[in-house]
């Protein structure tokens, strides 16, 4: 394996992934609104777009820490641009980045392909859920309460649904982001 020490080229590629991620994150707000119009339970299916920063950075740089820093950088730029989320984007960026990084860590930092992107994207969904539980707990509580009231689902089942939807969305967009980044890097 090549040196794990970060070079200036790696940081420049991190900047590239940050810029691309910021554009995707900015556009993701409109996709989120579109899915929200369908209903609160459809929302998690669109969140995978917000995990692509980590996957693009990791696939381009192929070094430990790239997934975390890529997600964090995209989130910081998203906050500076700005978007409606303000600095909460950074909270999401940190948590999603940690879990995406965990995905590559579990693979021993040896795989940077589409499968690794899908796994990291799926795991980033756990970070998103944790961040939403902290920042917008009222939304989750309302969804959870209604689910149990109408007898469709218990709060636990809602968490499982939320996680599964995040994982599916994250894996899908993660795989696409990894494929695009691999193709661009050549």
């Amino acid at each position, binding site marked *: 394996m090549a040196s794990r020490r970060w070079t200036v080229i*790696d*940081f*420049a590629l*991190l*900047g590239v992934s940050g*810029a691309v991620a910021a554009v995707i994150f900015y556009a993701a707000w409109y996709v989120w*609104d579109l899915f929200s119009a369908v209903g609160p339970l459809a929302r998690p299916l669109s969140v995978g777009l917000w995990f692509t920063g980590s996957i693009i950075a990791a696939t381009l740089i192929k070094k430990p820490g790239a997934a975390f820093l890529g997600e964090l950088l995209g989130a910081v730029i998203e906050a500076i641009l*700005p978007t409606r989320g303000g600095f909460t984007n950074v909270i999401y960026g940190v948590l999603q980045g940690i879990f995406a990084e965990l995905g590559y860590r579990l693979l021993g930092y040896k795989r940077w392909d589409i499968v690794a992107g899908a796994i990291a994207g799926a795991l980033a969904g756990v970070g998103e859920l944790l961040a939403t539980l902290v920042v917008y707990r009222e939304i989750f509580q309302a969804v959870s309460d209604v689910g149990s009231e109408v007898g469709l689902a218990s709060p636990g089942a809602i968490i499982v649904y939320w996680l599964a939807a995040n994982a599916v969305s994250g894996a899908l967009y993660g795989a696409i982001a990894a494929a695009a980044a691999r193709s661009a890097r050549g």
Partner: protein
Amino acid sequence: MRSGYSRRLGGSRAPVSVSALLLYSLWVTVLAVATSDPWKLGFLALVTGLPGLVLGYRRYGVLVPLLGLSLLGTFLNMLLLYNVGDPVFSIGPLVVREEAWRRTVSLDLRILSLAGAGLLFASTVNPRDAVRSLEVELGMPRGFAFALAFALRLLPLVYRDLQEVMAVRRMRGYRRVPITPGDYRSLFMPLLSVTVERGIWVGVAAELRGFSLRPRRRVRPRFRRGDLVLLVLAVLQGLVVAGLAGP
């Protein structure tokens, strides 16, 4: 480009330092996340959210109607999901009940506070000054600061490249608005390839100019008069959220 930033903070005569404003915005964000009490969130929205929205509207006008849509969406979602309890008011045949109203107010005030804090910073600070402040005053790692500065520089270039790709697509008879996955692929892959290539060569150039050997510069943040106002507001909001002052 520079003239667009001329009214923003960052110069040596600015009334508020960039790092103080950043810390203030982060502090209000933490406070807004920490509390669910509508009165406390209302105070944050009034002190920081509203001024942030007013300042942000000048520069990012499109965000404010979108924010309004978010607030309306929250209300409709809560109405759909949680319209139980005593009636609060009615809109025609629609009766809005206590739980839906209480949760809407809490969530919307939080969204206002969060967006206002972000807009307060983004609309008054030049992004390049923000990066400089983060690096030399607040100690952000140099490599990350370089990546952040480079990404901010890349954004207008990516936009310019996008215009060119769109123009070429039009000349070749592709549809103007991309619809299919293939359309998006043909739009974004050239963009990504060009941007990655640019990144690699910028990295090589920076390395050749001795970026790694450049000594690290740290500057102690200078306290300015406006910082005192921010400090007072930050303490006041902290006390209110902690329940030591106010409603």
